[in-house]
C-alpha cells in the first residue's frame, strides 16, 4: 500500500543493516543528556585528578621521594576512578532499554540479535576509544604543569598512554555491554562491572595462593596497566591487549548468547 515508495526488502546485506543500526545507536546516545554527561564527567574528573596527582608527585619529589613519572602515565593512573564513569555509561546504553521497555521497539526494528549487539559494540568501542585518547591528551597538560620536573615526558609516553587508555576504555565498554546484556538492569550491570574492575583485584590479593596471584595479573585493570606503561614483566603490551580482548569477547559473547536465547 506504500504511497511513500519505501521499498520493502527481505534480503538485506549484513553491512548495510549494521551501519543503519549503528547510526540509530548514535542518535539514541546523543539524545540522552545523562549518557553524554557521564562521558564528560569522566573526562573532567580525570583532568582534575591528574592535576592533583601531579601536584602530589611534585610535593613528594621536593621532599626527596622518588615519585617522578611521565605526566601521561600519572593521568593513566587516575583512570581507576575515571573508568567508573565510562563503565556506567556503557552499561546504561543497553540497560536503559530494559528499564524503559524500549528494548521491544529496538528488537522490532533490528530483529537480528547479532546486528544489534555488533552495532552497540561498534558504537561503544568508538566512543570509549575517543574518550580515552581525548582524556589523556587533555589531562596531561594540567598534570604536567602541576608536576613540573617530576612529570617530564617524551612524545612516545604520551602516545602510548593515549592509545593504551583508548584501547582499554573501548574494550572495557564491550565487557560492560556484555554484563548489561546478561543482567538486563542497570544496578546489576554497574555493580558487576565495578566488582570486575575494582573489587576482584583487591579481593584476590587477599588469597595467598600462587595460582590466584598469577590469575590476578590477568584481570582487565592489571592488563590495562601493562599495556599502557609498556611493561615487559609479567607480560608485554601485545599480550596485555590480547588478554583484554579475550575478556571482552567472552563477556560480550555471553551477553549475545543470552539475548538470542531469552525472550525479550
Amino acid at each position, binding site marked *: *500500500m506504500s504511497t511513500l515508495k519505501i521499498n520493502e*526488502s*527481505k534480503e538485506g546485506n549484513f553491512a548495510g*543493516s549494521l551501519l543503519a*543500526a549503528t547510526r540509530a545507536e548514535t542518535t539514541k546516545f*546523543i*539524545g540522552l543528556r545523562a549518557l553524554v554527561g557521564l562521558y564528560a564527567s569522566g573526562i573532567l574528573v580525570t583532568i582534575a585528578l591528574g592535576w592533583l596527582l601531579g601536584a602530589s608527585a611534585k610535593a613528594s619529589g621536593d621532599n626527596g621521594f622518588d615519585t617522578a613519572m611521565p605526566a601521561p602515565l600519572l593521568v593513566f593512573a587516575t583512570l581507576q576512578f575515571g573508568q567508573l564513569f565510562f563503565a556506567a555509561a556503557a552499561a546504561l546504553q543497553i540497560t536503559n532499554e530494559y528499564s*524503559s521497555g524500549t528494548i521491544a521497539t529496538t528488537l522490532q*526494528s533490528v530483529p537480528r540479535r547479532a546486528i544489534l549487539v555488533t552495532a552497540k559494540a561498534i558504537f561503544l568501542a568508538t566512543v570509549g576509544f575517543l574518550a580515552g585518547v581525548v582524556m589523556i591528551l587533555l589531562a596531561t597538560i594540567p598534570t604536567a604543569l602541576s608536576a613540573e620536573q617530576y612529570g617530564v615526558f617524551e612524545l612516545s609516553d604520551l602516545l602510548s598512554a593515549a592509545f593504551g587508555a583508548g584501547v582499554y576504555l573501548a574494550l572495557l565498554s564491550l565487557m560492560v555491554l556484555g554484563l548489561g546484556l546478561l543482567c538486563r538492569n542497570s544496578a546489576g550491570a554497574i555493580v558487576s562491572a565495578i566488582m570486575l574492575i575494582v573489587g576482584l583485584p583487591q579481593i584476590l590479593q587477599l588469597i595467598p595462593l600462587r595460582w590466584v596471584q598469577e590469575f590476578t595479573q590477568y584481570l582487565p585493570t592489571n592488563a590495562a596497566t601493562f599495556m599502557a606503561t609498556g611493561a615487559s614483566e609479567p607480560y608485554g603490551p601485545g599480550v596485555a591487549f590480547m588478554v583484554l580482548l579475550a575478556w571482552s569477547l567472552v563477556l560480550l559473547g555471553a551477553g549475545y548468547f543470552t539475548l538470542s536465547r531469552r*525472550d525479550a
Partner: protein
Amino acid sequence: MITLEALAKDFGATRAVNNLSVDITAGMVTGFLGPNGAGKSTTMRMILGLDTPTSGQSLVNGVPYAKLAYPLRTVGAHISGTAGHPGHTPRTFLKALAQSNRIPVRRAEEALAEVGLQSVATKRIGGFSLGMSQRLGIAAALLGDPQILILDEPMNGLDAEGITWIRQLMRTRADAGGTIFVSSHLMSEVQQVADHLILIGRGELITEAPTQDLIKEFTQQLITVRTPRATALAGLLLQHGAKVSTTGEDRLEVIGMPLERIGALAFDGGIELHELSIIQGSLENVYNQLTHDTVDYSAELTGGVSTK
C-alpha cells in the same frame, strides 16, 4: 498477511498460547479479542520475534519476522502502553528508528503530524500522558508506512476523539490494502471497526469469523416466557421446532420461533401466560458468554476484585 501455524508458548508450567492457527489477511481489520491473560500480547510478541514460540511458527508475508532486513517497512507495531525512553524527545526516538531501517528521516516529522504530536516534538517523552504515549507508539508503527499494522490495545488511554481517530486510521489503511491486527479485551472497542474477529481464551482459539456472521449467529431473538404450566408449554414449543431451555420454575427461554407464533400456540393449547418478551442478544453479551468460562482471574476467585 500474517500466518500463525500451530503456535504455542509455555511460560514455565503455564501454557500461555496453545495450538493457535489462523490467517490474518490483507485488506481488512482483524480484531483479536480475549479477556486479560488470554494470550493476546504473547501472540503478538511471537509474531514480532520478541518471544520465541515453544512450538509452531508465525510468518509475516510468508517469512519469519527475523528474516526481514528492515522490518519497520513491512510491519508497524505498537505493543506496549509506552513508547520510547523517558529522556528522549519524540523526534529523537523516531529519528533513531528511521535510521535503523533506512527510512528517510523526514518521515519522523510526518509521522508525528499524522498522530497530532508535532507541538510536542521536542518535549521529553517522560512527561507524556498515556494518551500521548499511545499516539507516539502509533507514530512509530506508521513510520515505515508498513503494509501490516499490529496494535495491542491501542485504545487504552485514548479519549473519545482519539478512539474515533484510531478507528478511522485502521479503516483507511485496511481499505488501502493493509493488514490490520488489533487486540482488545473489550468487544465494544473493536466491534465497530473490525471486519473479522478472532476470539481467544486461555491461549486457545474460541472462534473466528467475519464480524457480521458472528453478529447474525448470536443475535437471534431470545424470547422469555413466564407461565404456570412451563413443562406443558415447553413440550408444545419443542414439537413445533423451537429450542427451549428452562431458567426457573415458571420461566422458559425460547430461540428459533417468533414471538407471535409462541403466543398463538399457547392460546390454542389453552396455556395461561404471565409474560412474553424479547431479549435482543448483543455481540457484547455473546462475547461475555463465550469467554466467561475462560477468564482466568474471575471475581469469585480473587475475592471480588475484578480485572475487567
